């Protein structure tokens, strides 16, 4: 059994879930504090990159295959653009979120719209960043520790 970089492995394994959790917090708390889809997407991508750096690219690719990433990249952008189309079908302008809940007295339509759109940004950014990382690192799968 390979026990190289044992401390790093333990630390990354412990930190992986909290990093994802923090990313989700940043994602869905963007209305109330600093953060939003872009930062959250990057943070979640970083969690997987950390995993790949310590456990190897193949282990991460087993968890998140490239095919899935390819679809998620497009899905994020389509979620954003599709929200605009949906608001148009509801009778408003492109990305006019008020039409999502026109009867609301506390701008619930705007809140839903921002939440959905930010989710699209987060998914697109996370998938794209991870895809770029896969492509760069995938070209040299065997990294000699001496090379760093």
């Amino acid at each position, binding site marked *: 059994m390979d026990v190289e970089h044992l401390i790093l492995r333990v630390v990354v394994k412990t930190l992986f879930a909290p990093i994802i959790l923090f990313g989700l917090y940043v994602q869905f708390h963007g209305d*109330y504090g600093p953060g939003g889809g872009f930062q959250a997407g990057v943070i979640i991508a970083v969690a997987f990159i950390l995993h790949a750096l310590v456990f190897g690219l193949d282990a991460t690719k087993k968890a998140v295959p490239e095919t899935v990433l390819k679809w998620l990249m497009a899905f994020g952008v389509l979620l954003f653009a599709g929200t*605009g189309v949906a608001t148009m079908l509801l009778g408003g302008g492109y990305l006019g979120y008020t039409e999502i809940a026109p009867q609301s007295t506390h701008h619930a339509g705007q809140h839903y719209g921002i939440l959905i759109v930010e989710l699209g940004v987060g998914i*697109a*950014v996370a998938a*794209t960043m991870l895809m770029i*990382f896969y492509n*760069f*690192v995938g070209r040299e799968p065997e990294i000699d520790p001496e*090379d760093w």
Partner: protein
Amino acid sequence: MAPNALIAAAAETVAPAASNGAAETAETLTTSPIVALEVALLFMLIIVAYVMLKSRHLFAVVMLSGIYSLLTASFFVALDAVDVAFTEAAVGAGISTVLMLAGMLLTARREKPATPGRAPVALVTVILTGAALVYATIDMPAFGDRYSPANAGVGQTYVERTPKDIDVPNIVTAVLASYRGFDTLGETTVVFTAGLAVMLLLGVGAARGGRAVADRPPDGDDAETEAGAQREGDAGGR
């Protein structure tokens, strides 16, 4: 006193030439720690940038660029731009450092020494540009000046209208996702396109189950040209 006003007063002490109102001495005294922090951060930025220029060890340069981004993020926090600082820390210090490392793995570990040739031209260009930029900052409004174009015009409108229109506590999010939703859609598309370009250039041909693209060894090209030359020779012979 509100933190914004504190920082505004601090900025006025840093750039007295641009200040509109006279900063009171009492205010200057209470804000001196923030000024000291900002000056220290700027000095550290200069030191890190200089070391990056001088170092030929690419691994060290990549790590220093991460530190540079982290210092920039701290500076943004001191300027009260928390959202920008967050992005800078996550993207600049986090992911771009890793991507630079991954890029470094594909090339050499040490930078080749630069050939001295046009150094005077470059030096003059840099000094002239820098002097022009410093000259331009003299005309800039003081930091946090409420009468500056950025704060008095559309910025003020966003601050006033967000509670009525959108009712979201973070005005930055309201501007990004709702008022300027088209811009953000464009930015997301840019990120998506960048990912697509990397996929096409570095070749995950296997995305649809096809074969992965691999670099040909250099001697493969030579063999091809030799074969081509031979074919030409044959054609000439006939």
